[in-house]
């Protein structure tokens, strides 16, 4: 492993989310400073910020890209109770890389939620241009662009209440399966039952219906993510909670029964469970083949997990802050007490860090 480039984010507050486009050549970042920045990669200049604009009137929790078939489109969600869809105006590729600022227009503001919108995700491309949001009051909303060429018109197609404060949602991207969403709840009340619920769209009743609750997870959930399914006969779902858990979901209803109106029935099996992050796991992210999972947690590390050919999941890499870094080392010398007195120490640390760098 090596650092190919260090990108100065220039966000005025800590970053909440980073998201790549489908081709891995564009990146969007969002932060509590209420802005979103878009970065473009080219071989000559590496990553360059090509747009930065204020998106919301509260912390921006998540940012996500639509499939490029629909153009250059982003969705964001925020503490300000809204989600928004953004489209980039015509961009001249020749100007890219030279610090040009591209214009992103707000195409719509989705204002149906009465509480903080905690996650926003575009549906897999084969379902058209759909967008799902979930909010702290437990409601999942699914919007659809009425005309894919005119993104200012979104219709709220479905709305269902999960009766638990929601923190995250994930679409299953498998083409062979009916539309499916997993949601996670960060409700601290353990007696409220399973914190991960699975919903499926029923073709005959035209409704989203709950198909499963994963009762094995009763601790607050901070992230759920379906693995991309490249021909596997089962689905993999990663859950970030007190531990990192990986579930396999196998549809035990016969193939083809999906169209006959019945909902899927899953055999849910835990294929991996890890407490390496010492206490809580915050985020999970799959690679594009769904074979390596990255997780981040309270220990401040990023861990990579992979299954060997016997399907045993193991930690293969740990990325962590290096207290031996030269600059950091100097900082530690200047602020020897920072670990004992966090507030004071971190201020001192910051001073010396900026001096050193």
């Amino acid at each position, binding site marked *: *492993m*090596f*650092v*190919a480039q260090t*990108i*100065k*984010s220039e966000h005025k507050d*800590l*970053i*909440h*989310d*980073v998201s*790549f486009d489908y*081709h*891995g*050549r564009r990146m969007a*970042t969002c932060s509590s400073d209420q802005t979103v920045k878009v970065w473009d990669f080219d071989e000559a200049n590496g*990553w360059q910020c090509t747009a930065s604009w204020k998106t919301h009137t509260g912390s921006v*929790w998540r940012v996500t890209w639509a*499939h*490029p078939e*629909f*153009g*250059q489109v982003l969705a964001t969600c925020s*503490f300000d109770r809204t989600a928004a869809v953004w489209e980039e105006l015509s*961009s001249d*590729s020749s100007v890219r890389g030279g610090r040009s600022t591209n214009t992103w227009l707000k195409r719509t503001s989705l204002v149906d939620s009465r509480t903080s919108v905690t996650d926003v995700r575009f549906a897999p491309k084969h379902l058209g241009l759909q967008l799902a949001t979930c909010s702290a009051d437990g409601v999942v909303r699914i919007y659809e662009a009425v005309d*894919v060429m005119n993104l200012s018109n979104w219709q709220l197609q479905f709305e269902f209440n999960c009766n638990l404060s929601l923190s995250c949602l994930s679409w299953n991207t498998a083409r062979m399966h009916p539309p499916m969403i997993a949601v996670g709840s960060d409700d601290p009340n353990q007696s409220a039952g399973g914190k991960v619920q699975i919903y499926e769209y029923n073709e005959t009743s035209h409704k989203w219906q709950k198909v499963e609750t994963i009762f094995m997870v009763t601790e607050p959930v*901070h992230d759920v993510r379906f693995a991309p399914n*490249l*021909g*596997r006969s089962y689905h993999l779902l990663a859950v970030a909670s007190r531990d990192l858990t990986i579930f396999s979901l196998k549809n035990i209803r016969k193939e083809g029964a999906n169209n006959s109106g019945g909902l899927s029935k899953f055999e849910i099996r835990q294929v991996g469970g890890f407490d390496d992050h010492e206490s809580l796991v*915050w*985020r999970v992210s799959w*690679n*594009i083949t769904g074979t390596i999972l*990255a997780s*981040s947690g309270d*220990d*401040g590390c*990023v*861990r*990579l997990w992979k299954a*060997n*050919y016997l*399907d045993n999941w*193991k930690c*293969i*890499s*740990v*990325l*962590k*802050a*290096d207290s031996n*870094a030269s600059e950091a080392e100097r900082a530690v010398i200047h602020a020897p007490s*920072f*670990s004992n007195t966090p507030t004071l120490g971190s201020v001192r*640390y*910051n001073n010396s860090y900026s001096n050193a*760098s």
Partner: protein
Amino acid sequence: MATTSERESEIFCLPVLQQRHVGLSCVWGLGKQLHVYQTQTPPRIVAEKKHITDIPKVDNQEIFDVQWNAEMHDVSRKLVNETHNIFVMLQGQVKSLSDTTLYKQLRKASKQYRAVLKACSLELMQIADLCEDEAHKLKYEQYIQEFEMVQLIWSLCEIIFIDIHPGGLILTPLLDWLRWHFQEGKQKAMEVSQAEQPCSHAHYWESIYRLLLQGSVDNVRKLLALHIHSSSDPFTSVDELLSKMPQWTYQRAQSVAEYEMKWRHWREECIRRYEAGEFAAYTQLETIVQILCGDDAVFREMKDHCETWYHLLVSKLFYQNPTVRLTDLTFDIKPCQAVYSLPSENFPELDNILQAALEFDIHQVIKESCSFLSSRSWWFVSHLADVLHHCGQLDPQKLPFGSNLREYLLLEYATALMSHKSLWQVGVDYLDFCPVFGRAYLESYIEHIPLDSEGKAHKILHLCQERDFTAQAQSICKVMGMRCLQQERLGSALSWFLKSKDAIVIKQVTDRFLTEYCEQGKFSHLDLIDHLGPSMLITNSLTFLGKYREFHSLYNSGDISAASSLLLSLISSRLAPKTFWMTMLMDVLPLLELSQVVLDVQKTYEVMYCLEELQRDSTDNYKNLADSELDKLQCLRKALAKNLSRAIIEEGSVKLVS
């Protein structure tokens, strides 16, 4: 020093300080790429609920673009490309050849793979020699070391699992293996023989021992002949023993039993002469004969000359039990390892892999190699497993992930290639040979490959067409079309969208074309519109665009009657968007002003009806019409009325005649 457990999960440090409430988080890029950034822990969303407020402010926050496996340096690129050819050819042969001929090809392929490895390794050594930068040099040396280990394992596996000689002796190829990979003895012997007085050279005896331990009897005799006392009795006696040592040949002339008997007789003679004290004058000669006798103690003394337990194992067995069977090797592994109190300090994994191979446990070899060597490259395990699979040495059964071991490893290798900016094309071929998951992987990768240029997009499109990936091909065309559209390149956008055959997006572009025409009075991209062919029928608006352009060409070429009837049919078909009606109606005007009547009564009514509909239409189209346009409409109305009268007269006169 890394221990085994540490190596299993690699630790990578980023140059940021660990702070309370600030942790790392990450997102996957394409392939083996992560973007790691500092973020609040717990996330703000949670922290606010828990009223955690002492969040340190992090200025100059950085995002780290962390990559791995991307270090495909020039030499390993050569390895990838050249072995790719061997691989593809072998897969073809697997399909077409019968068992026996295939087996021959598999052995050949294994040797070819090793030859490429060796060539790359040599090239790396040259590069490392010329390299002046210390850090780079160190990196190259690491690669060389890994290449050497891979060769060591591969050639051992070839002897044990691939190039098997039924009824043959396992030790003969194993000695070759030693000679090939432990060249210290040979090099020292060279040095010694070039010295002025070889026998007083510091390495004289050491090189003799080393060669003897590898069974290179001829070279040992040559060196002994260089001794100043070589004509003395003890020397001639040793020489005689060495020359009489029975040689195993691959020719069918002798059976194993015969060879064994000869060996026993020869060894008895060695022991006899040793016990008679023929060599007492020279301790070194005594050591040599002790080796020949297969004396246990002397091999322990030789441990430094053998360097490793596996060298010792082969050397010892050669003199103690030259006809040992592969299955019996197992018993001697432990004692040999015990001679070396510590496992080779650098690579205990290598020891484990070789041990597993010698214990005939191929799955263990692969498993250990996966966790040890694959961290940098899956090249080795995937190719070895492929050959072994076709040799029937691997368990063909389905593993929990859904396919067999060969496919698992090939998928890993292909995955590493797919994330490389040019080697992905090689990766595609490997995925093609993964029967269960290859297609799904490839489909997914194709959707994610950056479409940097039109050329690359066409290349990938071609790849999709070859494999019948309709959905992916369509998607690529749409993505490219959207990009062109965003850059206002309407012509390219249309041609990409036409390939995607998606009516909605095509309509969007054709509408833009028509708007452009309304504004500027001319079409760009005429050649594209003129050659639409059957794709014109994909959507109404495109049909209209094509037909409308046809009207222009007819009109320009002077074929007024054809032009006018086409225009009329366009007007009456209502194919055009309402915004365009105005333009079409204005096109009628010049037709009305011609000296002969072009529009008959029926057609004139048709146009008038359209005009009326437009004016009565309460949509914005009409309301927003400028005064000048209203004037034009007025003009048209008059012209139509005039034409109607002319047409009635003309038609009426015709009636009169009939």
